[in-house]
């Protein structure tokens, strides 16, 4: 299975994860500061800043794009409950 490195900058931890996993699934397991609220791409609680590897996450869906827009999110911000890991990324809580 293809793997990629997901780094949580706030707790100084890199996890080698299978490609396709959503960021929130790992974040909650390791206790990083990216935390979830509704898990349905609605509330924006799990918004994170992608520090490195912006292109290594799945493309935002229409729903995610709308939530990011409603929350006036900057360019490199994503929802951890929606974004799937494709390659190496470094994230921190928004």
């Amino acid at each position, binding site marked *: 299975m293809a793997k990629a490195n997901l780094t949580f900058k706030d*707790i100084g*931890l*890199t996890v080698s994860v299978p490609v396709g996993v959503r960021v929130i699934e790992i974040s909650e397991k390791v*206790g990083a500061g990216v935390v979830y609220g509704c898990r349905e791409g609605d509330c924006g609680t799990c918004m994170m800043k992608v520090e490195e590897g912006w292109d290594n996450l799945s493309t935002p869906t229409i729903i995610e794009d709308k939530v990011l827009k409603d*929350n006036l999110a900057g360019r490199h911000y994503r929802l951890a409950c929606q974004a799937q890991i494709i390659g190496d990324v470094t994230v921190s809580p928004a």
Partner: protein
Amino acid sequence: MNVKDIDVSKIQDAVALSDRVYWVGALDPHLRNFDIILKTANGTTYNSYLVRGDQGVAVIDTVKEQFSEEFFTRLESVADYSEIKIIVLNHLEPDHSGALPELMRRAPLAKLYISQKAQLMLKALLKRDELNYETVLTDDRVSLGDRTLRFLHTPYLHWPDTQCTYLEEEHILFSGDVFGCHFCDSRLFNDKVGDFRFSFEYYYAHIMRPFKRYVLQALELIDPLKLNVIAPTHGPILRDKPRDYVRRFRELASSGLHRELNENEKSLLIFYISSYGNTARMAEAIYSGAGMIDGVRVSLYDLEGSDITSFVDLIEEADGIVFGSPTINGDAAKPVWDLLSSLAVINTTGKLGAAFGSFGWSGEAVRMMEDRMRGLKLRLPVPGVRIKLIPTDEELAACKQFGQQISKALKGELETTIVSFEQVLQAEQENVRSF
């Protein structure tokens, strides 16, 4: 009307703030508990306002649904529904949006103005898709001819949707819940009502305090405004020295402790409770280890030694907090939960958290405290330490190292650990994290 004569409990008319601006709200003097969380010793008011321009009328915020009749009666005393061109909702909580559906039905020509984040809430509250509304941001304006409303985007005061509206020609700020309080006095104006200072501070402490950062951002928008009146959605209308209330908000939202720390210095608080002294010994070792790292000011507190309020104040200003508790009947001790359940009034997002404790059989307390801290949106970079009964010298050395690691993490000096997905899954299964 002579100001001295104002007693809105006896009249059902609108009350003039100026010759173009009216209070059309409702009194709720019998309310004793608001939204479960707030005591209201003499009730509250739901303040709604009406602005008349030479090309139409605007209604700013409505009232709780069961007070609709009082609201509509006051509104009808100064305007006809066909004149209403604009409805502004600064905040969609039901105590301000309750009369909105009926108002929109009675005033079909009106367009609703709300913040961007209010959209989803609007649909969830009204259960209707086809609504005549527009979203607005800071400095967007709507005109009533010779009167202009300007919007200020002030989110999270105290919901994501909140905004303020400024009447440019009269320098009146319709501030929503900001600068409000639960205080019911039929004389309405701050220079006429009874002493509401406690209510003002109490409301801030429970409603605005978790959002201090957003309060300061909002004050950046409010400070430059000329202010003749602040008209909030609850409590007295602030027409006498309105600037004093803005100043008080800044004081309340400014941090005290950080000014006492040196530049780049971090503060770490260690709280513990101990039954046989084992968790206390761990706490002292962690305290000693954490203090070995330059630039971290460490404090140690026995939870039995003070009341919750003082600790909450300390935690609000701290960069990191560590909790220690023995495991008693499979749980952390009650004083720990008492403190951890009192942190909803402050913002703990992004602070560093850690946990430790001695145990006899199973030792669940550490993981439970860690889970609660995650729920409070703390980050936990250093896995908790659990020691079976009496700590050995070796184990106390490990506690000291744990303290050092916490301080290093606070300083951003912890090296990145690399683990596999399998290790993460195993740690989850075993309920113990070692990385």
